[in-house]
Every structure is written in C-alpha cells, then in structure tokens.
C-alpha cells in the first residue's frame, strides 16, 4: 500500500463522520490559530516599534515635563507644562553637543479642504523639529523665520493628511486649508516616514499659540509641551543628557535634593527595551498556545485509540485480505496526519482571519509571515506523527484471527 492510498483511505474514513473528525481536530485548530495570531500580533508590534524608532531619528533626546509640587502636593507627571522656549534656546546655545532642538505643542483638530475633512494631530513647532528628526520634504519648503516669529498662517502636511485632503493629481502647495476656522496656506508636504508618523499637520509654534491655544489660560505664553534635541554623535548621548539635566535644573531653580520637574529620555533606547519585552511576552504566549496544540494532539490520540477499538473487525478483515502490519499502521498514521494537517490548515486560516480582525478592530499592526505559518504546520505534522503513532502501532499489532472474532 502506498502513502497516497493511505491518505485516500484516511480521507474516506474521516468524511464518514465529519462532525467527529472536526471535533477531534479542534484542539489542533485552536492551537495553530493561536500560534499564528500571536506571531502576527507580536511581529506586528515589533515592526511598529522599529518604525517608530526609525521615525524618531538617530541620537535624539526627548525632554518632557516631570512631577511638580504645588503647596506640598506632588502632581502627576506632565500635569503642568514646565518647559519654555527659553529652555530650547539655552539648550541649543549652551550645550555644544546639541546640533538642533525644537519645542512643540500638540493637539488634535479637524483639517478642512474644500469639503474634505480629516481629523489629525496639529503640532506647533519650529523648523528645527524636522532637522532633529531628519525629516525631508516631498515638496515645498519649511517655515521661514518671519513665519516662525510672526505667527504665519502656513502649514506643512504629513503625507497621510495630504493624501486625505487632496485628490491624487492635485498639488497641495499653495492651497488654502482651514484648521479651527483659521485659513492656512500649505507651504510643504513631508516625506513618508511610516503610517503612525505621517498623520500630522505642522504649524509654526507661534501660530499654534496665537491662533489655536490663545485663550487657554493654563498655558504660559512661553511654554512648550516637549522638546526634542539632536545629539551630534552616538557616543555623546550620555554626556549631552547630563548637561541638559544640569542646565534645566539651574534654569528651573530646582534646589539640590528635590525631584526634577522634567525628564530627559532616549526614546530609541526605551523602545529597544520595549521591543525586548514584547519579544518575551510573544514567546510566552506562543508557549501557552503550544500547550493547546499538545492538548489537541492528546485528543487526536484518544479518538484514534477509540477508533482502532471500534474498527478491530475492519482491521481483521484487511489483514485476512492481505494487508501487512505496516499497511495497517500506515492507514491509521495517515488518518492522524490528515486530522492534524487539516486542523493545521483550518487553524492557519482561522489565525489569519483572527489577526486581521484584531488589526482592524483594535487598530494594531499585525504581520503574518510565512515562517510562522510553516512553523505551525510543521508543529501539527509532528503532533500527528507523535500522537498517531501509538494507536497506529496498536492497530497493526492486532492478531487477525482475534480481530475477526470481535463484533
């Protein structure tokens, strides 16, 4: 008997009881589906992080507000904007390792162009922001000095916003768009940097303060929400960081022993650490999913043992008609394999569907790679072989005479 005939017999036997066959392979289906999904979500999260790391740019430090004390009560980090444009200026002028720096204020708003409407992040900043992030223009120009100091009604669009507001043939440069009823002229469109980065519109910092946040009372005229700064070389990161901390403590008049009201972070390093954590969690989840594969294998073995008992007479007949022991073994092994492979295939399809659903519903990035699918299928084949072998071996060892006597 050939392998092919073994598979034909197996398929015939499994088709006779589709519900039972499906329930038997359910454990494998669930196991493989979870492995594929976990892989997809895990590698999606990694890709997203890598993209973020890339988009921040190399050797970038980020300074955000820290804890503040008001009447002896410690307020949450970031509850007060503690940095100013003066801080940006001081960092740029007094720390030689810093090549570029920019402060930002950000919020979300509707952006409108001729009946097209898009909700996006509005970032008020200076041209230095693009220098820090090595962010090139696809067309147009950056802000001019006059626009930066004089609250110019100009805007630079991220590629997503440009795509959403303008038809493919339209040149956005020179067009008028409106943000919170303020008409602005598009002066530049940025290069693509990644889906999470490109959904943004930049205006001069002075424009953001004067025209969008003007009435907000809790904002100091001079405040910025965060500062990004570019360090000249990789080896200077730690030194530059210490210098910024010293400078800002001095400028903010923080006495020795009191907590800083700002935080200096290396976002790329933090994200790399996060990436390691994601990998660990993903591996843990895969390990858990593998347990359900194991359970699935045991369930197949269980059903196969029952099936061998039920079909003892069939085995006796096949042996009497000339089936060799190895033919019987092959027949039942093929059955277990078909169950596992079919379960694996359904599981892969289910896993792909599930991770695409997760991607859509939760807005996570998922990435299905063929390696994970191959691994899951290989797992199910191995499971079939391991858990199918014992029942198949048992079937092949039955004495044909005894087997023929059973009912």
């Amino acid at each position, binding site marked *: 008997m050939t392998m092919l005939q073994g598979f034909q017999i197996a398929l015939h036997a499994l088709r006779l009881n589709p519900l039972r066959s499906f329930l038997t392979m359910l454990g494998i289906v669930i196991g493989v589906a979870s492995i594929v999904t976990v892989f997809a979500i895990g590698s999606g999260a990694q890709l997203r992080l890598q993209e973020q790391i890339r988009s921040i740019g190399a050797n970038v430090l980020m300074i955000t507000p820290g804890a503040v004390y008001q009447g002896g009560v410690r307020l949450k980090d970031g509850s007060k904007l503690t940095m100013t444009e003066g801080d940006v200026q001081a960092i740029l002028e007094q720390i030689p390792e810093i090549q570029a720096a920019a402060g930002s204020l950000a919020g979300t708003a509707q952006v409108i162009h001729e009946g097209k409407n898009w909700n996006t992040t509005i970032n008020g900043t200076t041209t230095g922001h693009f220098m820090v992030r090595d962010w090139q223009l696809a067309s147009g120009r950056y802000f001019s000095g006059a626009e930066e100091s004089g609250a110019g009604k100009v805007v630079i669009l991220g590629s997503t916003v440009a795509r959403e507001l303008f038809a493919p043939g339209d040149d956005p440069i020179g067009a008028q768009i409106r943000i919170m009823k303020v008409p602005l002229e598009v002066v530049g469109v940025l290069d693509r940097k990644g889906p999470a980065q490109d959904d943004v519109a930049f205006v001069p910092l002075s424009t953001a303060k004067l025209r969008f946040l003007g009435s907000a009372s809790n904002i100091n005229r001079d405040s910025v929400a965060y500062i990004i700064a570019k360090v000249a070389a990789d080896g200077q990161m730690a030194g530059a960081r210490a210098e910024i901390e010293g400078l800002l403590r001095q400028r903010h008049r923080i006495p020795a022993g009191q907590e800083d009201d700002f935080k200096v972070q290396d976002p790329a390093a933090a994200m790399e650490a996060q990436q390691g954590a994601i990998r660990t969690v993903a591996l843990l989840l895969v390990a858990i999913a593998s347990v359900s594969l194991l359970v699935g294998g045991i369930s197949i073995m269980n059903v196969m043992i029952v099936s061998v008992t039920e079909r003892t007479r069939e085995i006796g007949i096949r042996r*009497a*008609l*000339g089936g060799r022991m190895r033919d019987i073994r092959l027949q039942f092994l093929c059955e277990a394999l078909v169950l596992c492979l079919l379960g694996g295939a359904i599981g892969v399809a289910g896993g792909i569907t599930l991770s695409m659903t997760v991607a859509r519903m939760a807005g996570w990035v998922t990435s299905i790679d063929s390696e994970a699918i191959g691994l899951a299928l290989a797992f199910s084949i191995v499971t079939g072989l391991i858990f199918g072998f014992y029942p198949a071996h048992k079937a092949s060892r039955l004495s044909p005479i005894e087997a023929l006597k059973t009912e």
Partner: protein
Amino acid sequence: MTDQSPLISLRSVSRTYRTDGIAVTAVRNVSFDIAQGEIVAVMGPSGSGKSTLMNMIGLLDLPSEGAVHLEGADVAGLSEDRRSSLRARSIGFVFQSYNLLARHNAIENVALPLVYCGVGRKARLARAEACLQSVGMLHRAHHFPRQLSGGEQQRVAIARALIASPLIVLADEPTGALDSRTGAEILALFAALNRTGQTIVMITHDPSIATQCRRTIRLHDGELVSDERVAELVPRRSAVS
C-alpha cells in the same frame, strides 16, 4: 506449480492454544494434501478444530507442530509480511458473516484485496466489475452492505475472494447464515467455480452440502477421522440456475 507437488500439503500438523497455563489442542497430528482443482468439504462438530485448520491453510496462523506447505514451500519459513502478501495474491477467504466493510460499497469491497497487491485504482475497479459480473451482482455495485440481503452480501464476498485469482478459496461455513434456498444458490456458485478449475475448501455443518463435494474431510476433537472421496460417476445434485 508443478503437477507432482500438491497445492497444499499438511504434515502432522498440530495447533495448541495456551491460555493461563491450560493447553488446548485444537488440531492434533493432521496430515492431508489438496491438489489443484479439488473441492473439499471439511466437517465436524463444533469445536473440533475446523476453523483452526482453515486459519493455518490460509496463512493466518502457524502450526505449533508439523508443517503446512503451500506449493511445496513450508509457510513457517516465510516472514509475516510475506505471508500477508501471499494472502492477498493466493488465498481467497469467504466467511460465514460475510465480513464486508460496512462503510464501503460493493465494488470497493470487491477491489480491496488488490489494494494490497499494489494494483492501481482504475485497474482495481475494472477487475472488481468483472468479478461482480461473474457472481451476478454487477447491478448492485454501488450499494452498501447494509442495503444488500445476506445472500447478496455473500455473493459480493465471493467476488472479493476471487478478484486476485487466488490459488485456493477458503470458505468457513459460507451458507451458515443463509436460508436453505439461498444457501443452495451460493453452493451452486462454488460448484460452478470449481468446474472452471478453482480449488475450494469449504467448512460446512450440512451433510447435504458435503455430499456435493467430491471429497469430505471429517474432524473430531482436532483429529482427522476420515478423508473420503466420492467417485466421479455419482451424479451431483447441483442447483445451477
């Protein structure tokens, strides 16, 4: 196959079963030959060892003592796999309870032994069709065993026994589960087969069936008590329809 050496030859064959230290000798010191083209009835009371003897002739079992020769070769010297292959090609079993695979239709059942002879699907089905035709069951080729009467199932089973053109057909009470009329039809089928030269060994309890065979072997308590041949001139009450 040479004309001198018999098809099957049993030499002082004994078969002893040992369960829990108790030894039961089902077949004791039996010797006889079966030549090509014979039709032999095996008779004896229940428990006299007929089925045990048949299993040894059919290579399903080996003697505890003595030797079974198939075409001059001692079957004890053959490997388990080799004996299985010989069963596929050289032995055709017919059982009292038909033993068709319930989940396969008639033609697939008939074709089954050829799976173990390495014959491809198309050729298998073509030969199965011819065999079904020869037992008059072609019109039921795609029926499942449960859709067939006992007599019809036994015809299908006989077609299955014949499909690999075996050296010998071994039938263990093939009419035991059938009424006398249907039994007679099945018997007629065997008789017709034998006239074409097919060697047949048939276990039966029915003396009237035995008289239609030219040779009758009687067992008692595992021992051979008589081996009679009926002269050719005695007319057979054949029931050929």
